[in-house]
């Protein structure tokens, strides 16, 4: 489960370099997300633009990650693909998460730490 984190001030932008967050990888996803967001940024934005499949295990891992960060820190999502959006909408989890259409604007204008 490959996650890549970039830190910009009070935001940690986590890119998910996987196509699926499913039963085979849900636990690894939750563990990795916790590991890369240990810097303490108040907002953790997870860029899901490469993920085209999330099952109920994956959804549970994402909810679990949000719960781990709460109450002081917030997990937000970006770049949901249509299939993932469908799962979030069916389960009404799209009413629980802040969902950004894209993560592009979080990285724009920031320079990589030298």
């Amino acid at each position: 489960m490959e996650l890549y984190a970039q830190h910009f001030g009070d935001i940690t932008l986590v890119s998910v370099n996987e196509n699926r967050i499913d039963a085979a990888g849900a636990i690894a996803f939750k563990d990795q997300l916790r590991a890369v967001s240990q810097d303490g940024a108040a907002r953790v934005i997870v860029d899901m633009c490469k993920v085209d499949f999330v099952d109920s295990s994956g959804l549970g891992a994402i909810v679990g990650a949000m719960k781990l960060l709460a109450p002081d820190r917030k997990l937000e999502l970006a770049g949901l693909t249509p299939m993932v959006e469908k799962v979030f909408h069916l389960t009404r989890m799209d009413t629980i998460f802040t969902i950004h259409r894209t993560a592009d604007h979080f990285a724009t204008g920031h320079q990589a730490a030298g």
Partner: protein
Amino acid sequence: MIDETQNQPMRLTFNSDPVAVRSALAQVKTGMAARNLPPEHMVTMEIVLAEVFNNIVEHAYQERPDGVIELLLQDARDGINCDIRDQGLPMPDMALPMGREANLNCAIADLPEGGFGWFMIRDLTQHLTYSRIGDCNHLSFQMQV
């Protein structure tokens, strides 16, 4: 006279481990590609089958990777009929889980992290039935295409 335009049923047999499940789902997508289903319906099919298979792996076979899962997909007049068999433990109370919609009207700390699967299966299928014959669990349903 053989109707050459009728699609052949699709049968798959695979083991009860998450990697085999991923592979089976990919094979279903490849096999269904010839039917030119709308993408929306392929998405529905993958969601439902993933949840059913995951339930069999986790509950029927208790995470043992050496169980066998059999899938049969057949065209029906107004959809696709799915039959799934396994030889794992029976459903609790020999009945399908209710799969009620989760209550999300609570504090973040109390949000559910599971129980979404049966809700989605029920929401996306018709004629969902479960039976146990001998040592075999049989689950069948129809998906509209």
